[in-house]
């Protein structure tokens, strides 16, 4: 096995036993980046110099006996998470030169545990998209087939993990932006419960839906990272003051008798047959491990995508108002104030971002608010209740992560509605605020990864991690690596 293919737990073991040093590991990862990044384009900014420095100081700390949970682990961070002194672009022209004077809470926690930042990864501009094609700095490619999209919006992070350009990564998930690309890139992506992880320093797309989560090569790494980034933060009022369990300790526990809900509404038309078959196989596998599959109903699922595109765009239209050319970021010249605003935003934002700002502005406008925003909030409440009711009888819910494997670059860019449907299985999880994880569960005849999504109760990441781990232990999908 190549050094860059190590998991967090594997690398920590190798470092702990003295077989590998953080600097060696970091150098191996950068060697890999140099070899494949030209094909993948996972990064917006590569931070080699500071990474080697961080690896050195991790090494010194380890010698001193200070052992962070991520000491010397090279990780990539989605470029919508603010990193002090390192530019944070959101893959947008409007923030192309923006260098935050502050650190996001999650990356601060990673730093405290001694991680090494390899670079900032590409995304759909402001996390708006499902293919990482909406980046002002070019599209990221799927390591399994570079003619295909990696999914999005955390496509850069997922492709980087899959291609060995980092040991693990962080992404953000508003409607599936961690889980969908994780499925399409054959890695593990976890969206925690809304409020589990602080959003401070995550550039907001839709504040009531955004959540940061780990993107890793296996389930154990996901639990390790979740341990580090979870917890109440005084800087984020929406982060929940709830206790954080040790997510690693539940791995390997028996899943016998655990009830797995299969929502009947998720068997949609136009579903890819191979994906469908792999997901059914995965459920059978879980049954063979002692879990009990049960049919459940989430009756309002059909309204989720529509409600999501009202709520997320409404919040986005307001969240993105601050990019006005006055204080930081791009400023275009204008005849007067209004013209400066218009030129700046016309030049600074890409077309998908503009489309969503217009949609959201419309939905919040006086006279339309009740018909759109308010109605969508009511649907959101119904969807939340659907999940509550389902979780009265089951412990977790299993679905495909996406209806189809990765599509070709450019295939859906002209058809936003088709693009929006690739998040059909993930969106309702954000609306309900519950946690969801995507794990590899097969490869199509075209050698493209397929993802299984496991959804848990509020603040019950333990159950989905436990089941995901049990599944992973009895399969080899997660060990497959793309040939590049």
């Amino acid at each position, binding site marked *: 096995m190549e050094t860059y293919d190590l998991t967090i737990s594997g690398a920590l073991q190798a470092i702990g036993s003295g077989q590998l040093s953080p600097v060696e590991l970091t150098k191996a990862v950068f060697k890999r980046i140099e070899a494949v990044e030209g094909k993948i384009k996972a990064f917006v900014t590569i931070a080699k110099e500071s990474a080697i420095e961080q690896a050195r100081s991790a090494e010194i700390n380890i010698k001193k006996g200070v052992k962070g949970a991520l000491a010397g682990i090279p990780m990539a961070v989605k470029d*919508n*998470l*603010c990193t002090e002194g390192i530019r*944070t672009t*959101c893959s947008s022209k409007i*923030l192309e030169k*923006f260098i*935050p*004077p*502050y650190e*996001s809470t999650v990356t601060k926690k990673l730093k405290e545990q001694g991680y090494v930042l390899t670079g900032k990864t590409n995304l759909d501009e402001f996390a708006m998209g499902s293919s990482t094609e909406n980046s002002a700095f070019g599209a990221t490619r799927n390591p399994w087939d570079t003619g295909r999209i990696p999914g999005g919006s955390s496509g850069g992070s997922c492709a980087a993990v899959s291609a060995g350009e980092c040991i693990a990564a962080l992404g953000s998930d508003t409607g599936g932006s961690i889980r969908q690309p994780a499925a399409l890139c054959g890695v593990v992506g976890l969206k925690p419960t809304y409020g589990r992880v602080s*959003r*401070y*320093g*995550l*550039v*907001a797309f*839709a*504040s*009531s839906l955004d959540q940061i989560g780990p993107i890793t090569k296996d389930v154990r790494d996901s639990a390790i990272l979740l341990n580090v980034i979870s917890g109440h933060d*005084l*800087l*984020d*009022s*929406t982060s929940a003051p709830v206790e954080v369990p040790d997510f690693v300790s539940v791995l390997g526990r028996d899943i016998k008798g655990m009830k797995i809900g299969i929502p009947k509404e998720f068997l949609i038309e136009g579903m890819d047959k191979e994906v469908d078959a792999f997901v059914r196989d995965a459920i059978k596998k879980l049954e063979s491990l002692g879990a009990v599959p049960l049919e459940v109903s989430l009756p309002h699922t059909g309204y989720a995508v529509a409600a999501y595109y009202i709520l997320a765009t*409404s*919040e986005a*239209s*307001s969240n*993105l*108002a*601050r*990019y*006005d050319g*006055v*204080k*930081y970021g791009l400023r275009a010249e204008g005849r007067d*104030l209004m013209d400066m*605003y218009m030129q700046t935003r016309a030049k600074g934002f890409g077309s998908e971002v503009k489309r969503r700002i217009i949609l959201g*502005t419309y939905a*919040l*406008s*006086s006279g339309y*608010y009740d018909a759109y*925003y308010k109605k969508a909030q009511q649907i959101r409440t119904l969807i939340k209740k659907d999940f509550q009711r389902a979780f009265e009888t089951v412990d977790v819910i299993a679905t495909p992560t996406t209806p189809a494997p990765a599509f070709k670059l450019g295939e859906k860019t002209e058809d936003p509605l088709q693009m929006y449907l690739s998040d059909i299985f993930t969106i309702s999880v954000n609306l309900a605020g519950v946690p969801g994880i995507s794990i590899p569960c097969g490869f199509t005849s075209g050698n493209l990864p397929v993802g299984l999504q496991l959804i848990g109760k509020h603040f019950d990441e333990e159950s989905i991690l436990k089941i995901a781990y049990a599944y992973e232990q009895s399969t080899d999908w997660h060990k497959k690596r793309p040939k590049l």
Partner: protein
Amino acid sequence: MQYEAVIGLEIHAQLLTDSKMFCGCSVKFGSEPNTQTCPVCIGMPGVLPVTNKNAIEYVIKTGLALNCTVSPYSRFARKNYFYPDLPKGYQISQYELPLCEGGYVEITEDSSIKKIKLTRIHLEEDAGKNIHDGAGNYSFVDLNRAGTPLMEIVTEPDIRNPQEAVEFMKKLRTILKYINVCDVNMEQGSFRCDANVSVRPVGQKEFGVKAEIKNMNSFKFIEKALEYEIKRQVKVLKEGGRIIQETRLWNTDRGITESMRSKEEAHDYRYFPEPDLVPVEVEPSWIERIKTQLVELPDSRLERFISQYGLPGHDAGLLTSERATAEWFEEAVKSGGDPKGVSNWMMGELLRLLNEDNKQMEECALKPGQLVGLLNLIESGVISGKIAKTVFEEMYKTGRDADVIVKKQGLIQVSDESAIEKVVDEVLKNNQKELERFKAGDEKLLGFFVGQIMKITKGKANPKIVNELLKKKLMEDN
């Protein structure tokens, strides 16, 4: 046709918190531009607001003082509009669920009491300030004020004339200052109001079309602007015209209101619940705790001053108009001062001197116990009332005790009859002409003799003894 005005006010009061509404920056006034800012209040990407609990507490306090219902559950909302002094492109405010609802303020009008009802009180953040250079080429943005906590108090359209509006504002100012939630400085803009004004024929129930009047930054301008606006609207209607719903600005220089924007040009603020903040839940125990900390309010204090100290209504009103004044008074009475005596000295001398110096009671060097010391010297005849005024001024200036000043300047009253008699004799002897006129019946000259005696004794002669002796001598000579 006779018209009457219908006025509702929206008051913005800057809260006296140490830090801003959603971050830890200072709210001090007058610092160098952009020195009191941080990533949160300048709206950098990815930062989040954290509510200042003190600001919420101040609004609850105000709600209790203004007889409002404090909502157990309220929410912040975003008010969206673009302006350079608004760093996030939205203001965090409250819309559907404000912190306080209902309530009223009582004002006195022609000695009868009128209740002005309140609609709501909500909490929001202030914007920054745009500064334009003289040549008009550049504009600058100062975000020191951005994020300062503001409380908005909205009245029902219960006000019927400009004087009532001013009375209301004065009363509100007194209360807000009493409960120490706002420094009520209209000049610096920490206490300001907009007015919704309409007129209608007397007897008509429906409201007329309203105009919103802004930029009235003193009581005088509120009165003038409203007077002007009411006249303007009545004139338009009498001439057969129609009032347009619009926002108008008071132009101080020209003494008129001018159209700023019409209803069609009005912003659509696209309010929606602020997703970065959880709803504000106010437990009954929190309200109770704030209630126990609430000071006695001016109205009940006034009534108590009348009943407890036997003060006339006028005195009580004046002494309770400022919390510091009322507390000074009560402190003096507690130190043994006679209420009416303390009140007379405060209203006659102390408030006059403070007023002359343009000072607040809080800045007064003289302590209540010192006034009582002075009153005791008068009572026991050590100094005369007349001398006391001089002593008081000295005390006010230096903060020294009365007896120290009296001793140092030799102002002790002369009550020695033989000493005074000598002076009386001398004055009568030296003013023969006046004496004769007095004897001829010009009794007004009694005051002249007293004056002469006081002049010679430098005011120190006990006036009672002077009077007695003088009368006795004058009678004798008859």
